[in-house]
């Protein structure tokens, strides 16, 4: 059997597809007689745009539509015209949508005319390998481009078997994708490690795949959806990905000079925090929250193999949360290697200083700690399991260890009020030396999240997000099963509090590049050099117990706990005197206050700062 694995736009062009890499190796291992090939349609699209537009539409434009417009569906819309054989399909609705929200759509509009020719060219290239089965992996905005190509492939060669899988196919979404698109023969819902080889066996034998858990298949004109399994794939059964074809395709591509290629690895699936406390807004783990991790030794062996083979030192992990065991059995191995790796990892925000130091030493310098908010009550509402004070400590330690911290400030949680935000907003000018959020964003209702599954949490009314009106030509009840994002009535803050929050974050972002708040030891004294935006530049000198107090507050303490600690350290200071000092130091903006807890804000180091987007593809 000839199997072709396909990843279509808008898969990131600097990354191999982990799914294609895994399945390639899996099918080869399970079915040695099969011929497995890959088609990197995402890369092809970037090349196609570059060539057909004579260099006008560049890889940077691909990124702006493909990665930056997920919440507006622009990338999917680009291919809707090809899917529905109408170059103008959805354009009027998109224009109305964009005008109402002030969304920039010119780049997407520029790309749309190339989409149909591209799909035709893809079909020719895919069919040239004479595949028996074409398997698409789809996540985020890969649905419409994949459907458009699947449709064209089946039009040209009806006997071909088309299979869809990936995150976009999880649960009811997969069945809706199947039943609304007759040219899709099968949809694998959930993890594919067991299901795909089982399906290929049925295809070989010509038997109906009634026993493949989760699979959607056609029984005549009836779309059947087998019951999904609760059984998850064991880490030992997850193969190490094969990126040989991807690297060959990228190295032969004119896109190469615009991108910084990275490896993608997977240490774990699921979320150990979500198993206990599912963050109310998060739907990322779909239907399988169960946390499973490869042993650290195995993850390291995979990275070792891939780095040696591909000569790439940038590694992105797809794990939704780092396995805490990796601080013992993975990250120390990375440090020992002595290689100059640069790793990206999603972590939990309540890491210790030593853990954050280890991340930095190992080259795990790009972290996503899921900070989400700086107010403890709002963090409680989302069941995040951290406090605002803890999040501030994490942001401060990121400066100390030169860690790039990607985070968003989320709002709009049912039950929150302006009173939860005012104390945080008032303090944002003092935080300007710490890495700002990408922005303040109202949460969206995501399928699989507690907010979605339990309407009683505050989002009772919901409908498919409006952006899908310019993406799919399907009735609303079908969209309700097919899509991931939903519109609902706004919850939480609005009006003045929302405006204040957004303005404060905008000012944080604007003032950050030239702001520093640095400790320096001067004998037994402690100096704090305040070079923050919006304040007179000054240096504070702290002596005796005051210097000790500010250092003790690096860990975050209440006033009474701080008083006890200072007394234990032999400092003589009255509670009243200490209270006055805390209030004074807070007014200077050297402390963050979270309820009764104070955290000191100066850092011991300040990394070199680069302008936003300094090295983004052109």
């Amino acid at each position: 059997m000839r199997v072709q694995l396909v990843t279509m736009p808008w898969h990131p062009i600097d990354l191999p597809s982990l799914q294609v890499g895994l399945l390639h190796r899996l099918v080869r291992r399970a079915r040695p007689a099969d011929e497995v090939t890959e088609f990197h349609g995402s890369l092809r699209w970037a090349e196609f745009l570059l060539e057909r537009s004579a260099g006008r539409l560049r890889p940077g434009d691909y990124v702006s539509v493909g990665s930056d417009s997920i919440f507006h569906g622009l990338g999917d819309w680009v291919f809707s015209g090809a899917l529905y054989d109408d170059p103008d399909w959805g354009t009027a609705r998109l224009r109305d949508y964009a005008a109402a929200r002030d969304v920039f759509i010119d780049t997407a509009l520029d790309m749309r005319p190339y989409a149909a020719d591209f799909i035709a060219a893809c079909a020719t290239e895919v069919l040239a390998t004479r595949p028996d089965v074409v398997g698409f992996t789809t996540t985020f905005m890969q649905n419409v481009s994949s459907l458009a190509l699947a449709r064209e492939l089946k039009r040209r060669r009806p006997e071909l078997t088309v299979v869809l899988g990936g995150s976009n196919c999880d649960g009811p979404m997969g069945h809706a994708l199947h039943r609304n698109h007759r040219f899709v023969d099968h949809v694998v819902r959930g993890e594919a490690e067991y299901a795909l080889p089982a399906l290929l066996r049925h295809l070989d034998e010509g038997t109906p795949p009634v026993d493949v858990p989760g699979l959607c298949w056609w029984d005549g004109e009836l779309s059947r959806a087998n019951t999904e399994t609760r059984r998850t794939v064991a880490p030992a059964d997850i193969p190490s990905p094969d990126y040989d074809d991807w690297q060959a395709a990228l190295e032969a591509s004119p896109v190469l000079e615009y991108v910084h290629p990275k490896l993608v690895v997977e240490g774990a699936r699921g979320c150990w925090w979500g198993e206990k406390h599912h963050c109310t807004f998060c739907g990322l783990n779909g239907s399988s929250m169960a946390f499973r991790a490869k042993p650290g030794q195995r993850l390291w062996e995979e990275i070792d193999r891939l780095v040696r083979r591909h000569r790439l030192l940038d590694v992105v992990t797809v794990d939704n949360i780092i396995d805490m065991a990796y601080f013992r059995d993975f990250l120390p191995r990375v440090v020992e290697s002595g290689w100059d790796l640069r790793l990206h990892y999603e972590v939990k925000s309540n890491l210790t200083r030593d853990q954050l130091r280890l991340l930095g030493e190992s080259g795990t310098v790009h972290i996503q700690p899921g900070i989400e908010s700086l107010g403890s009550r709002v963090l409680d509402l989302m069941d995040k399991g951290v406090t605002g004070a803890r999040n501030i400590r994490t942001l401060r330690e990121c400066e100390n260890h030169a860690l790039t911290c990607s985070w968003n400030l989320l709002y709009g949680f049912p039950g929150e009020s302006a009173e939860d935000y005012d104390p945080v907003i008032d303090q944002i000018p003092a935080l300007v030396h710490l890495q700002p959020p990408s922005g303040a964003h109202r949460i969206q209702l995501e399928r699989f999240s507690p907010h979605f599954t339990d309407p009683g949490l505050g989002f009772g009314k919901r409908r498919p997000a409006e952006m899908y009106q310019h993406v799919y030509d399907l009735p609303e009840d079908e969209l309700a099963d097919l899509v991931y994002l939903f519109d609902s009535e706004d919850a939480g803050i609005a009006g003045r509090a929302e405006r204040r929050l957004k303005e404060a974050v905008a000012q944080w972002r604007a003032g950050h590049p030239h702001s520093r708040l640095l400790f320096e030891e001067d004998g037994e004294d402690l100096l704090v050099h305040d070079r923050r935006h919006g304040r007179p530049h000054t240096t504070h000198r702290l002596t005796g117990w005051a210097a000790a107090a500010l250092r003790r507050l690096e860990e975050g303490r209440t006033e009474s706990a701080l008083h006890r600690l200072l007394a234990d350290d032999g400092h003589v200071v009255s509670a009243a005197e200490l209270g006055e000092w805390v209030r004074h130091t807070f007014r200077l903006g050297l402390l963050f206050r979270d309820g009764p807890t104070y955290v000191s804000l100066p850092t011991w180091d300040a990394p070199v700062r680069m302008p936003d987007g300094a090295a983004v593809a052109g």
Partner: protein
Amino acid sequence: MTGLPAAVPHRVRGRRVAVDGPLRLAAGGRETAVAVQFLRECVGRGLDAAWTWAADDAGPPYDLRVLRHLPPPAERAGEPGELTAWRTGYVYGALYHRRGPGFVTVLDRRDAGTAARLTLDHPDLLAAFDRLGEPTPLDALDAVHQEAVGLLAAERLALVTDGWAVALPPRIRSWPVPCTGI
């Protein structure tokens, strides 16, 4: 301890390095190689170097643009235009190297608008590159390594003047924020 080469007298406070005397980057030979190594190591450690160009020196015996990734000299009245251009065009991380198992990767963005990626994995080339971490007289190298240095110089990864050679790309030991900015 910053680990900066002691051959160039300097003082360090926080992330700022003040070089005590002028650096003779136009002199050529050992003196220039030592100065380049010093500035290169400042960049690798994320340190900001303040230094002055030796006022009496004429233009350098090489294309100054190969040093565009190193911190430029302090401004002075009547300075040559190429020093001004260096200052205005300076971007942290415009040239750097990273080490992997049996290879070194180099990213070169010294020419605005371009990004050249090189992988050094030939043992002779790697050995020569490692050797040039320290300023090295060419006549101390055997023929194979001299040839390798020639290749590195042709790719503008080594500066060779008056019989002395030094590697140009710093090893990044301290990533900037965002780390994807270089």
